[in-house]
């Protein structure tokens, strides 16, 4: 066993020295390999981080949201249903929610306007007050007096005193958020009393959701029920699909890389051929040459893979994946500026290895074999 390890160590030593003699060729290959790993790893790390973020956010969403439908379109729902819904056994709380979007013609941004739920005492706002998200400052001058001016869809002018700013950390959900009181909300959008955007049900036992939905559908006809798990599933599907499509598009890059690797490995220089010829003449076997060449591939692969992965990690988690953001995240004037939670997952690393190391190895097997079976007398002549 120890002899075997020592033998492999000598082979690695020899291979490294041999690689150093052909620096340019190996550095070029290493560079391209690194780039491929970097791009693929960035896509995968970003995709999974954003899925994780969505899952964490949804953990606080209500189990069921009830929306009224009129001719298949979402409409305001009456608060009268709240009583019937909270009477269903298993429903802990049913409350009406008021939220919507306000388009600001001045800067082209869309604000999410919302009334904080009654149960949320930390964000309670009085009439004429507002709590704003971290992104609002970027597109709107709030000024020294902490006033926020908004123009209602009707053209009326509204003035709010900014009571508080939401912390930066909540950027993903709250960048474009403006929290105002119920009275102000109804005045801003000219809403009558007793109607809500939708109704949120919080349910004690998640396993009962299906049964409760059945009962609620009878209590509130003409409505659509959106469950938290279905939202989570949709997010998971969408982001995975986007990631997969991007990876499939990058398939062309992987293929060109495999061709490059094949080409580099087949184009043995006369010097390399002579080297192999001499090695065989002094007693190396075909399998030894194969092993040495295998180590060459493994060292390049491992190096490029690790460095590419680390660079992608830094790109995604320290530089917010600046190069990929528009494709995977989408785009808006008031887009949240958020930091993803660093996270790495073995399944992803294995998948990445399948996309990079496997094509490289597959592409180099034939050239390596051709080199290894070289007869000493033909090359040394």
């Amino acid at each position, binding site marked *: 066993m120890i002899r075997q390890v020592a033998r492999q160590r000598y082979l690695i030593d020899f291979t490294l020295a041999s690689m150093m003699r052909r620096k340019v060729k190996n550095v070029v290959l290493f560079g391209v390999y690194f780039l491929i790993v970097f791009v693929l790893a960035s896509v995968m790390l970003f995709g999974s981080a954003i899925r994780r973020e969505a899952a964490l956010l949804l953990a606080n969403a209500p189990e069921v949201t009830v929306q009224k439908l009129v001719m298949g379109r979402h409409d305001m729902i009456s608060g009268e249903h709240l009583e019937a819904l909270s009477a269903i056994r298993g429903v802990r709380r049913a409350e009406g929610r008021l939220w919507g979007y306000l388009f600001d013609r001045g800067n082209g941004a869309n604000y999410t306007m919302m009334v904080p739920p009654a149960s949320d005492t930390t964000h309670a706002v009085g009439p004429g007050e507002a709590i704003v998200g971290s992104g609002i400052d970027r597109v709107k001058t709030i000024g020294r007096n902490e006033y926020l001016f908004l123009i209602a869809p009707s053209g009326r002018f509204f003035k709010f005193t900014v009571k508080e700013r939401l912390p930066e950390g909540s950027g993903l959900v709250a960048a474009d958020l403006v929290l105002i009181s119920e009275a102000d909300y109804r005045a801003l959008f000219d809403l009558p009393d007793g109607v809500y955007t939708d109704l949120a049900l919080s349910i004690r036992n998640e396993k009962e959701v299906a049964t409760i939905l059945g009962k609620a559908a009878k209590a509130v006809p003409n409505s659509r029920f959106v469950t938290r798990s279905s939202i989570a*599933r949709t997010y998971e599907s969408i982001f995975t*699909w986007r990631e*997969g*499509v991007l990876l499939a598009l990058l398939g062309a890059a992987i293929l060109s890389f495999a061709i490059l690797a094949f080409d580099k490995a087949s184009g043995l220089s006369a010097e390399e051929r002579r080297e192999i010829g001499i090695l065989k003449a002094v007693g190396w076997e075909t399998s030894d040459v194969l092993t040495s060449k295998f180590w060459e591939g493994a060292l390049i692969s491992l190096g490029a893979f690790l460095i590419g992965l680390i660079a992608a990690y830094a790109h995604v988690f320290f530089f917010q994946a600046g190069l990929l953001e528009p494709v995977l995240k989408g785009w808006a004037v008031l887009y949240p500026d958020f930091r993803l939670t660093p996270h790495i997952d073995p*399944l992803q690393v294995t*998948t990445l290895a*399948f996309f990079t190391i496997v094509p490289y190895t597959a592409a180099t097997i034939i050239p390596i*074999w051709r080199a290894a079976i070289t007869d000493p007398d033909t090359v040394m002549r």
Partner: protein
Amino acid sequence: MIFHPPILAILLASTLSLVTLVWASGFAARLVRKWDVASGHAGQIALEKRTYLVSTALVFVLALEAVSLILFTENAERMSVLFVGAMCAIGTLNVNAYGFPALILKVALFFGAAVWLIVNHADGLGRDYPLTRFKYGLLIALSPLVVAVAAVQFAYFYNLRADVITSCCSRVFVPNAGGLEADLSSLDPAFALGLLFGGLGVIAVLALAALRWRAGRLAYAAVSLVYFAAGISAVISVVSPYIYEQFHHHCPFCILKPEYGYIGYWLYLPLFVGTSAGLGLGALSLKRTPASLQEALPPFRRRLILTSLAGFGLFGAVALTAILRSNLIMFG
């Protein structure tokens, strides 16, 4: 759902294996007919040179298939959030009729690949490559399996539909559900424990016999396969309820989840290693030891026996630890 990244990775590996195996089988058919190591004919020399290429390519794709099995299972586990009704890999595999056949075929291919790699290694130990013809014969036998895995796996992934309502493990692994899963779940726990630990005793005795006699080695290989089945049955019937601390939860996949400390991997990996080494030992004992391997093969066989014993032993030890640490009382 074919654009799911791990699915793309598995399909890439499977396509590569398929192409390599089909090409290698063509070569193997030629080799089995024409191989004559004593001949100095140019055709024989070319064949010998080409075996290096084929062996290297096969070592690569078969090792890839082994990793692909783990990726397949773990991916099924992770994808369960995408399907209504699925809570672990069982739900994902149940989405269409190809899921479980794909898994079973992949397990069979894993063992086939492991046996081939072991025979290939033994073949390299002799100066005249005495097992070459046998090795390539084995490869020809293995190639339909590779084709089947590639086809069924593709059918499975291609037909994954997010709108299908699937069944989770709590519906499948219950005694009154019907089918093999139900039979395994309703297996008497005492009998299953007897199989698990009594089987280890039988294995240990057979290992002693395998060190001395060829018949012992063949018996060891057969019993390895039986013990694999017994081990899986015991996990379903008795070990997993102990791990979940729930009398009625028999799922063999939920134990792979992080909330149970990935204990499933600690159980399955040694069991797979033990069985593979046992089967490899059997394949090497099908024929009498060739003259050129008289010296090199016995130490290798001993290593295989020890590896297999260690694998089964570790499996038993992990199962025992899980049972002892559990708060569930099944007996008494």
